[in-house]
């Protein structure tokens, strides 16, 4: 910081001392203590800033609406130590209860099906379901693809022939 050519504190020094909230140290501080002009100028800026704050408050309305707080949250939601684990436990228990006690109510036997259980959602018998599963396990491709797949024409190639075709045996591969 440097003083201006008149020997007084520069405006920057005055602002800086004002922002810091204390007199500057060193020669600038000594000057400020001794110079009524600089103190007056500093006070002028300070008064303008205070006037700004006062004017803003005067020009703002007062709140007219009463703050309405929400009611306290239920006690269970305040069980912080358990938190999510407790909630998850309750959810799992509720789900288990639904599965164990409500699901049988929706089960029914197929007429003439000798007690085969049909799920309420699917409506498909166990046997039909298992047949589908078995078919898909053996070949997941639709019938249209099955017709053109090599497996449909295994009479043309056995496994060794296909392998030999794909990976021909070389006599000079160094292994024989």
């Amino acid at each position, binding site marked *: 910081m440097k003083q201006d050519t008149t020997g007084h504190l520069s405006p920057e020094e005055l602002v800086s001392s004002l922002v810091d909230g204390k007199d500057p140290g060193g020669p600038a501080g000594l000057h400020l203590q001794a110079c009524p002009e600089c103190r007056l100028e500093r006070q002028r800026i300070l008064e303008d800033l205070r006037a700004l704050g006062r004017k*803003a408050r005067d020009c703002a309305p007062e*709140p007219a609406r009463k703050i309405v707080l929400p009611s306290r949250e239920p006690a269970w939601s305040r069980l912080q130590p358990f938190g999510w684990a407790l909630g998850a436990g309750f959810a799992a228990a509720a789900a288990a209860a639904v599965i164990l006690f409500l699901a049988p109510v929706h089960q029914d036997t197929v007429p003439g099906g000798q007690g085969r259980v049909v799920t309420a959602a699917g409506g498909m018998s166990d046997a039909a379901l298992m047949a589908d599963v078995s078919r898909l396990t053996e070949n997941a491709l639709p019938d249209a693809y099955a017709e053109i797949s090599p497996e449909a024409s295994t009479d043309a190639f056995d496994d060794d022939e296909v392998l030999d075709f794909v990976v021909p045996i070389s006599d000079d591969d160094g292994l024989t």
Partner: protein
Amino acid sequence: MQDTLHGDSQATGSGQEEGGESPAMDPRLIAEVRQAAAGDRAAFESLIGRYQGEIFRMVYYRTLSRMDAEDITQDVFIKAFRGVETIRDPVMFKPWLYRIALNAVNDFYRKKRLRSIFTLFSGDREEGQAPEEDRASERLERKEFWGWLGKFLTRLSAAEKEVFRLKYLDDLGIREIAEVLGKNESTVKTHLYRAVDKFRCEKELCGFLKEEKP
């Protein structure tokens, strides 16, 4: 902008040394914050009584809309009520509250910008502005003041503007401002220094304020 003039100046402003630390907290206030943090609703309501005016004004300075300021202030206290139990140091309550309010104001402007995109195409008018403008016309002096202040604030950077408002309009101390903005004190002082230096050169605004002085 509003219809009544309440010049309560109990507030704060001038009593605090410029740039200095925030004043020591009232022991009763500390007790209230502790009780509120422990779940005491009455204590929190007492804190509302203490800070509602400040927060409302703080929001109003940034929105210049009484309706919006009322709504945002309500939201601020609800958020504070839900989170007050996280307050460990009662001294931090005020900066924490201002931080919530500042975030709420920023959210308000984000939503407003988003709405303006749609109103641009639909031709809808922003509700609630016209009546306030009409009332403001009855109080030209206020309108003039906010006009001068707004003009000055446009000359500041975003950081300078916020620091300046928190310091000289909201009357927070440097440490409180640092807490509200999540910056260190020297950064706050740097922005404040630049803002005050620009304010010093704002002859028209300063002249307007001088006319108002008793």
